[in-house]
């Protein structure tokens, strides 16, 4: 399974820095192309994932003309969001609400749309369990136990949420199991700035763990010519993970600088640009 590493020998930090210094043309070029495809093409791409992983942010960033300026704080989506630029008709990113009660209500319809061939690709957003929530304090959370440290809470919470990511992937995969049309499936692994120091563990979790097994199963079922999967690790923006009352649950990792952030973001745009240009995998 492909796990793109944006920082490679071919793309040295110096090259990227030079590109960024020259007015971010590097990113802008791909953003405008992606923009064009979403605005004028027939792309209809649903975005799935648990609540708080970054689905709405992904949609916003992909449809924004200023993707690196997004500062909107986490806010729950209560209904299906269709994201497009004002005044444009065709081409839509459809963000499915991720709260468990809403999954029951909204996902079956969206998955039916995928199954009937209305969409030629779908995006599943995960974030290694770092799911934002709007409960004011972690001490109000079900996962919290008396005199638990922040680190312990985060460990237990992220573990539970990783299990949920797998559950929701299973649900998504069941929804597309009888698909007749070819489809591409992108897993966007968000919040890279929070797990950059453990990127090998994260890569192993998704690219060789149960997640990968589920993806391989559906690939076998649908056939490699009809199902194409990609991983895109990214940080949509760099920020510490805090609760509504300002308690810091996790900090951005030292060493994850702007160059890494922008180059991975660029990889996201390039990959989606390629997939959208290609249409369906056939």
């Amino acid at each position, binding site marked *: 399974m492909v796990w793109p590493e944006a920082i490679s020998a071919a793309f040295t930090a110096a090259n990227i820095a030079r590109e960024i210094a020259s007015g971010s043309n590097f990113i802008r070029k791909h953003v405008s192309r992606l923009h064009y495809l979403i605005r004028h093409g027939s792309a209809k791409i*649903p975005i799935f994932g648990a*609540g708080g992983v970054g689905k709405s942010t992904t949609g916003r960033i992909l*449809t924004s003309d200023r993707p690196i300026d997004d500062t*909107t*704080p986490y*806010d*729950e*989506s*209560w*209904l*299906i*969001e*269709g*994201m*497009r*630029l*004002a005044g444009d008709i065709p081409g*839509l990113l*459809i*963000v499915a609400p991720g*709260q*468990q*009660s*809403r999954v029951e209500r909204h996902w079956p319809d*969206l998955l039916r749309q995928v199954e009937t061939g209305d969409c030629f690709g779908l995006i599943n957003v995960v974030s290694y369990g770092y799911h934002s*929530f*709007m*409960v*004011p*304090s972690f*001490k*109000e*959370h*079900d996962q919290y136990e008396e005199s638990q440290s922040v680190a312990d809470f985060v460990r237990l919470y992220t573990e539970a949420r990783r299990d949920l990511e797998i559950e929701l992937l299973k649900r998504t995969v069941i929804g597309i199991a009888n698909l007749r049309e070819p489809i591409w499936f992108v897993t966007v692994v968000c919040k890279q700035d929070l797990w950059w120091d453990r990127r090998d563990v994260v890569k192993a979790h998704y690219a060789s763990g149960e997640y990968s097994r589920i993806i391989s199963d559906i690939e076998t079922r649908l056939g490699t010519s009809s199902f194409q999967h990609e991983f895109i690790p990214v940080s949509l923006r760099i920020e510490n993970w805090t609760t*509504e*009352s300002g308690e810091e649950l996790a900090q951005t990792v030292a060493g994850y600088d702007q160059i890494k952030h922008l180059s991975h973001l660029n990889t996201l745009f390039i990959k989606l640009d390629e997939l959208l240009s290609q249409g369906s995998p056939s």
Partner: protein
Amino acid sequence: MNNNEYNYPVFDPLRMLDLLTEYTSRLQQICDAKSRTDIRRFQIIWVIGLVGVFTFVFAIASFLDQQMTFNSLTFNFTLAAGAVALFTCLMLIRYNYSSRFHYLFDASRVASALLRLVKLSSQYGEHSHKRISDLFEYELRIAEAEASLELYFRVFKREPVDNRNDGFGKHPSTFG
């Protein structure tokens, strides 16, 4: 909800249920009132419009019948009646606009608060449900509130937008 020593509101499921019920019913009432007014206004405009058309036709007929002279009493009477009908229509249309904005202001204020409540309740339902004694009723109230919000978007012909960015209606999201 009370603030505790850490200065964040402590979740009180019963209070949340009360607020949800209160705002849902207020929004529902506004939507019902707006719908009733719309229907009534539509009926009145339709009847007056019909009277106006008949009056106009009658005026033209009487004008033609009297060898195209404008000085008959019947013609003047029907013309005056037509003018009154037209004036009433214009007044109703003007009233329609002003009352529509009156409802809209109230409704968007309540809907904005209700949307915030729905999101908070849903978050507590997902992340803090151990504190909720009757999860079934809690989810039922949230579903009612959401149905009420959807009704608001339909009745007021508003885009079903989100209130993130602190501005109800500023987010470029719509139903898929």
